[in-house]
């Protein structure tokens, strides 16, 4: 391949694009929309996080100002976990609007994570959200199609192609040059998109860690590969079409099918074939399993009766009142352990079911680079299902630790003798409350994010290889007429 010719053709493709007036209006509109997307991503990030951090602090302050009381009262007083948005959500909002934002953490009970943005939405959210990532994934490919559909087909129609070929440019040079030129045009949108992302990250005061740098670099890389694929496909289809109109129709069909139709259809079918349970059925199943293990509230329950007998035997006493620790705290510790374990099993089953629902869409990444880039992008932005799972796990782990800490305090510090109906309730000093660490969510680690998207990464690489191979193959067989 002659490099000079490739560069020459790339430059010519670039210059040609600027000969039409349309490109100026397209670029202006695209940059304006990008500006709005960036602003709204940044606004949502700063607004939501300052709100959530504020109430996280308020919840903590309220927890700490509790007076002396029974630790089990505090276990029910509980606290809240508010989900913090990842800084890169300014670039790709991912699933953020569909995931819950706040959850009440108390003993015995795993509450639902409520107040997702979607639950306050008027129905418009179903049209999608505007974000820099969405523009690069959906709109930019359409612009590439628009700029590139006629790149070779028009040359063929007006006879330029014959001249090019007779003047020493080979098919390989033409295909490579046009792809490169088209890609350079795409960079006119990509470069500002990432520049503004970095600016907004700085403006939002996101700590610039190695993790964040890695995410950014990987995001740039996957978009470059994705857009290269789009450019190569555009050029290949343009080269293979007899007329530019035919090329346009094929490319528009390709875009519509892959960017709009397939993702929604595959996800809808996935959910159709693997219906998920409703909360009422989910909760009932957990309740049933817990009751099967033993009902800690029932004095005649065999599991807890056996537990009591063996504890009494070990300590050589005949009644729970003579035990060296608070027995009901001990029972609640056991109950919490059992119910949390059962809950986790059910959650795992549910997650597994959701994975199945999503599996069809994930599998289509192999034939759909638009799905591959979408999954990769939101994983790298820390706004995918994996990141939400991390928050859910953290919240549950904190809830469990808090409940068990209160049970431990009860076992240790609360008397075994029950107060009478008119006695002062049992309590422990309030300085214990401050000693319990606050809930602090850690942003999802890059490694965790990547684990879920290896398939999409592979699919994108395969697409890139296939597109290169396709261009290579048609360069052998293409005709100028």
């Amino acid at each position, binding site marked *: 391949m002659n490099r000079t010719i490739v560069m020459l053709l790339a430059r010519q493709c670039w210059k040609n694009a600027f000969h039409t007036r349309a490109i100026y209006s397209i670029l202006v509109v695209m940059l304006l929309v990008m500006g*709005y997307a960036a602003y709204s991503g940044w606004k949502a990030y700063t607004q939501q996080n300052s709100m959530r951090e504020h109430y996280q602090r308020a919840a903590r302050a309220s927890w700490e100002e509790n007076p002396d009381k029974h630790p089990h009262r505090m276990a029910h*007083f509980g606290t809240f976990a508010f989900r913090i948005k990842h800084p890169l959500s300014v670039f790709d909002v991912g699933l953020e609007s569909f995931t819950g934002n706040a959850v009440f953490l108390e003993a015995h009970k795993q509450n639902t994570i409520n107040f997702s943005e979607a639950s306050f939405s008027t129905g*418009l959210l*179903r049209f999608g959200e*505007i974000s820099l990532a969405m523009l690069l994934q959906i709109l930019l490919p359409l612009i590439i199609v628009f700029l590139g559909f006629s790149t070779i087909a028009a040359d063929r129609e007006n006879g330029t192609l014959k001249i090019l070929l007779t003047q020493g440019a080979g098919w390989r040079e033409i295909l490579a040059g046009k792809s490169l030129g088209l890609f350079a045009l795409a960079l006119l949108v990509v470069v500002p998109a990432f520049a503004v992302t970095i600016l907004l990250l700085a403006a939002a005061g996101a700590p610039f860690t190695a993790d964040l740098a890695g995410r950014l670099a990987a995001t740039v890389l996957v978009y470059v590969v994705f857009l290269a694929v789009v450019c190569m496909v555009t050029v290949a289809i343009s080269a293979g079409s007899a007329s530019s109109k035919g090329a346009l129709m094929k490319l528009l069909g390709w875009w519509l099918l892959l960017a709009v139709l397939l993702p929604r259809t595959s*996800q*809808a079918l996935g959910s159709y074939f693997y219906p998920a349970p409703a909360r*009422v059925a989910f909760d009932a199943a957990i309740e049933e399993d817990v009751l099967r293990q033993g009902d800690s509230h029932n004095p005649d329950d065999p599991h807890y009766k056996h537990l009591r007998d063996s504890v009494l035997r070990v300590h050589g006493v005949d009644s729970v009142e003579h035990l060296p620790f608070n027995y009901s705290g001990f029972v609640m510790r056991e109950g919490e352990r059992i119910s949390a374990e059962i809950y986790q099993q059910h959650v795992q089953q549910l997650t597994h079911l959701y994975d199945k629902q999503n599996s069809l869409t994930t599998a289509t990444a192999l034939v759909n680079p638009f799905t591959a880039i979408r999954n990769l992008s939101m994983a790298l932005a820390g706004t995918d299902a994996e990141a939400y799972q991390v928050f859910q796990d953290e919240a549950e782990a904190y809830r469990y630790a808090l409940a068990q800490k209160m049970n431990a305090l009860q076992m240790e510090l609360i008397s075994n003798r029950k107060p009478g109906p008119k006695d002062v309730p049992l309590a422990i000093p309030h300085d214990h409350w401050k000693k319990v660490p606050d809930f602090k969510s850690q942003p999802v680690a890059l490694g965790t994010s990547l684990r879920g998207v290896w398939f999409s990464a592979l699919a994108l690489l395969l697409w890139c290889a296939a597109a290169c191979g396709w261009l290579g193959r048609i360069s052998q067989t293409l005709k100028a007429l």
Partner: protein
Amino acid sequence: MYTLLIKQFIRSRITVGALLLLFVLGLVSILIGNQFLAQQEQRIAQVTEHQRAHRERNVAAHDEMGLLLYYLKFALISPPDRLSALSIGQRDVNPGIQSVTIRTLEGQKYDTDLTNPVQLHAGNLDLGFVILYLFPLVIIAFTFNIFSEDHETGTWKAIAVQARSAVRFLLARLFVRALFVYGLLLALLLTAAAIVSIPWNEAFLGFVVLSILYTAFWFALAFWLALFKKSSGFNVLTLLAVWVVLTILLPASVNNLVATLHPVPEALSTLLKQRDGYHKKWDEDKQVTLARFYAQYPQLEKYGMPEETFSWGWYYAMQQQGDEAARADSQALREKMRRRDETSRAFARVIPTLHTQLYYNDLAQTSLTDYMRLLDSATVFHEQTRLYFYPRIFENAPVKSEDWQRWTPAYLSPRQTVHWAPLALPLVAIILLLLGGTWIRSRKLYFGE
């Protein structure tokens, strides 16, 4: 002439393929909607059954009225309209069932159902989506070259010479295309009505009329553009750009605007206040709590101030204070939701896609308005249930004295959803505007050639 036009139209492979694809996707969407409806109904059956089983177990296990009511759940169900199968709307995110105990309501009423966020993100493939997104695409594919193709292939001159009126010929061509598109639309709507067994009521008629008007808007737009005599490539790109703007860019931008314009920190403050409002009462003077409670419900004042350290009357008074503490924030939250709805509707009046989607949801009773209505009804329902049980708790009435069997879920009655003028007018106005533009262009077509 029509027979020939029809023959010419359906001879194209693309035509048949597009119609077939649309029909298949329409069918799939109807099946998905039907499954959704079945799941909603299954949920109602599960809640009803769970309420019964849960109640029976707890009634058998507890002999104190106050303790029993700590556990018992009472469901208020907003049964899904059959039309919700065609426009799932917000109903997948916001559950149509409130299953609550008589404790603090604000801590329970926002509980969500289990959802797969990836599924919600991809969006539902309901018939509403097929009509909103895919019908315009097919209309574009059928009409973008309705005029330009003859220019490009050189047949226009022959037609202009032979046809009595050029515009009338083009209209005939458009008519043939509309015949197929509307035939398909009605076929899908009738199939949906049959599969989902939608009753032939005013709401369904509203759905049909709205669908016809919405597709008419696209026909009018495409025809108006065709008369500008641009190339096929220009037409298809322009129409597709309009489609992208109307179905993707504008709605998404309006959505982001609504979300950032009206953020809802009230949701989080409600959450905190209801908890503190109840829990901190444990450390406060019982007399004060009960006095406040009695001020709210003077009819209960006769139960006086208990002397025991703990009494169930006091316990539920504390719980009620949780709702009381969060009342202002909860109302502010409601007001924010109402304002979001208002802003969206204001934009929708001039954006046909938004208008159609919001009205589909209204007709199917799957909109935010319907969710807010359920939340409001839950507040009333909760208070009625509480007020029924409060005296029995204070008197510690024997558990057996109550006829528990009658505590089956309560149902919300459907609402009147069809308001013809706001439903039709925005679309009719835009269509008339486009037809006016077409008429002006068509005159130029005569004299300008």
